[in-house]
């Protein structure tokens, strides 16, 4: 057996190092390290309550709206405030735009370039894929980057700028939209839909959203252009449904909340039995036995973050969140399965959580978001307020739970005298890339890497790259 270290692990958001024990050409054990700690939770302590809205989004430049939304929701929970309905619709629209932009960035900039590597030169699809997806120089970037920039014009209108906006407040959003702006938003969303239909799917969104089974997907794919079909073809050729398998339960806090039910439902699902379970937030704890962190109460509502760089068993700045004692996988796959999307449910039932199903779920979700954004923008009541003026409540505790592109994001806040006494964040990749817990149970990625064949390439193994990137990790969020 030999141990190899993979890093710097690039084309993920932030810093990541992976140590693999290899035996007989396959991974037998993995150790995932978040090698960057900035101390946001410590910085937030003692600050005026609303400063969380300025500082917390700056945890992450790729999902700053998600961080804003979680911070605003946590403060709102303390205040017991209902936001303006328009503000909820506007925030959901901006949040969906960010999440869709993240899915695009992941697919085109982070994930697909690995298939343009030289080692796939002998594959029948190689020429086309290399021409299209080579990092920085592939033909796709000339279409994707302008489409992404156009999509993010939603932020210019609703949020002033992206990343790092202060538009998302406990009472709603800070910019009331007029009729002209509604039309501009609808035009941007239409351009995004057109990009998805032309470049990603080569079909109407309605047809894509109607796909309801693995067979339907296979039939649809045959002979189709578009980057989704290109991915499906190479995914089958490389059996991407056989690598990066996860057996941890899937979890979603529910996404795009409003006065009615969220757009995507909340819940937990056991992937081995396909049984749904109730999501009990109260059973969440963060284990620090293998994190460079001092021990303390594990419940996020009670704990503090104090680094301990010399901790003997530590190997990551990431804590190990557990739901009722178990690691869980979060992300688009979890969201879409828990929401009951028939295609994703069928794929999961057949092949489980793996590299292929994670990517498919992301692209299907992107199509759903394009649809939802249009509905929300049309629902603005333009003469009514976008932001309620909160009556500040300076004492108490609250939790803000949202779904970032990469999965479940929670902010736990406690205020005392309108100052932050405690601030705890559990980010999606903290769940997915958590280190082992006190019982030695590895986190979801650590489990998913086991069995991956690395052949003779060792650290350079592209299969390892596919597995890690299938989670679309955001390491800057992980240890924050």
């Amino acid at each position, binding site marked *: 057996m030999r141990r190899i270290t993979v890093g710097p692990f690039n*084309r993920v958001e932030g810093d990541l190092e992976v140590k693999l024990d290899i035996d007989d050409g396959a991974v037998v054990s993995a150790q995932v390290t978040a090698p960057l700690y900035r101390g946001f939770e410590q910085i937030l302590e003692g600050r*005026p309550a*609303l400063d969380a809205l300025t500082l917390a989004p700056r945890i*992450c430049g790729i999902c700053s709206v998600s961080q804003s939304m979680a911070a605003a929701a946590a403060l709102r929970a303390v205040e017991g405030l209902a936001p303006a309905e328009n503000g909820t619709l506007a925030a959901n629209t901006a949040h969906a735009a960010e999440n869709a932009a993240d899915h695009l960035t992941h697919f085109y900039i982070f994930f697909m370039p690995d298939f343009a590597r030289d080692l796939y030169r002998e594959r029948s699809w190689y020429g086309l894929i290399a021409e299209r997806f080579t990092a920085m120089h592939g033909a796709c970037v000339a279409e994707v980057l*302008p489409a992404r*920039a156009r999509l993010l014009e939603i932020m210019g209108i609703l949020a*002033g700028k992206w990343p*790092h906006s202060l538009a998302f407040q406990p009472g709603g959003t800070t910019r009331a939209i007029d009729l002209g702006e509604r039309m*501009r938003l609808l035009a941007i969303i239409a351009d995004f839909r057109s990009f998805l239909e032309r470049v990603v799917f080569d079909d109407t969104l309605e047809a894509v959203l109607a796909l309801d089974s693995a067979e339907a997907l296979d039939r649809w794919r045959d002979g189709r252009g578009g980057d989704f079909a290109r991915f499906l073809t190479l995914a089958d050729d490389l059996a991407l449904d056989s690598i990066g398998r996860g057996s941890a339960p899937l979890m979603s806090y529910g996404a795009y909340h409003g006065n009615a039910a969220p757009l995507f439902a909340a819940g937990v699902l056991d992937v081995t039995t396909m049984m749904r379970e109730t999501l009990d937030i109260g059973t969440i704890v963060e284990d620090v036995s293998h994190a460079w962190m001092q021990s303390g109460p594990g419940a996020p509502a009670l704990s503090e973050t104090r680094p301990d760089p010399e901790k003997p068993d530590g190997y990551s700045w990431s804590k190990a969140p557990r739901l009722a004692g178990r690691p869980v996988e979060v992300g688009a796959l979890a969201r879409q399965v828990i929401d009951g999307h028939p295609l994703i449910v069928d794929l999961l039932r057949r092949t489980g959580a793996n590299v292929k199903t994670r990517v498919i779920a992301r692209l299907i979700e992107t199509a759903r978001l394009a649809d939802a954004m249009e509905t929300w923008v049309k629902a603005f009541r333009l003469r009514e307020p976008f932001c309620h003026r909160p009556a500040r409540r300076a004492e108490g505790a609250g939790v803000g739970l949202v779904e970032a592109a990469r999965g479940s994001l929670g902010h736990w806040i406690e205020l005392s005298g309108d100052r932050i006494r405690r601030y705890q964040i559990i980010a999606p990749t903290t769940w997915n890339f958590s280190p082992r817990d006190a019982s030695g149970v590895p986190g979801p990625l650590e489990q998913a890497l086991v069995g991956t064949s690395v052949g003779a390439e060792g650290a350079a193994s592209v299969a390892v790259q596919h597995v890690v990137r299938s989670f679309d990790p955001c390491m800057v969020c992980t240890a924050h």
Partner: protein
Amino acid sequence: MHSSGFNVLWLQGGSCGGCTMAALEHGAGGWFAALETFGINLLWHPSVSEATAGDAIAVFDDIAGGRLPLHALVLEGSVLRGPNGTGRFNMVAGTGRSLFDWIKLLAPRADYVVAVGSCAAFGGVPAASTNPTDASGLQYLDTELGGALGAGFRSRRGLPVVNVAGCAPHPGWIMETLAALALGDLAASDLDMYGRPKFYADHLAHHGCARNEFYEFKASAEALSERGCLMEHLGCKATQAVGDCNQRAWNGGGSCTHGGFACIACTSPGFESGRNYLETAKLAGIPVGLPLDMPKAWFVALAALSKSATPRRVRANATADHIVAPPAGGGGRRKP
């Protein structure tokens, strides 16, 4: 990878990745096309390069060993010097070395060193009190010269660290700075007192603000989402912070003040030390932070005068979230 051109190595320290996300928004044809236009060759960038693990480390080693010319070293994110000067809070994966070490090793090899974002420039949010990781900018910590590279640091072409400050900076600020360096068109005299390129730092964020009419009459918004000036009550520092934010579009047409919230002076060293960002600090009812180059007494006198002359339309709109009083007369005189 091009063998000729202007070689850039882009590293991320204690960063959120937001500067890269902003850069990826650049240009009608996309950031990569814009880089190519100016002959800029990304030797390696953590978010967008194919080279990973050993291949990436080989690029670092070749630069350190003088085998690969480095025209610009770009850092995004703060340099985390802690704990105890070890840099261990930010190890560069796969290298066993801290980012702090790598920066000290690579910066002397670079023709230019560029800090992208307020973290790399001045320390940024990770350096906010109590600065748990001993975060610093490359050549400043807050307004103090020094930082990770030292006050006297000059890159091989004789420039101090070029500070593209902003959180995140406008995509144009990043691209235009790199382009100007690649064309040899950026001199020390093009930088302001904090090393920020003057092409954007010689403006105030206030210039071109769509709320200017409200500012003129001191017709102020009292709560977020109202249309009036954000300076008197809601913490806006646009009259004190550098940036051409309101002269060029963010995300196709936005800006912070356009979005309905205050400028928090994210281009300024120490912005992270602010408190109550969306609330104006006042002494005896008068904002503490007044425009930098205006005597306080004059400001107070003019404000009182302009308040007394505020048109009813402007006053009504200032505290509304929608236009409630449109300009009278329809903008031109109709013939009877």
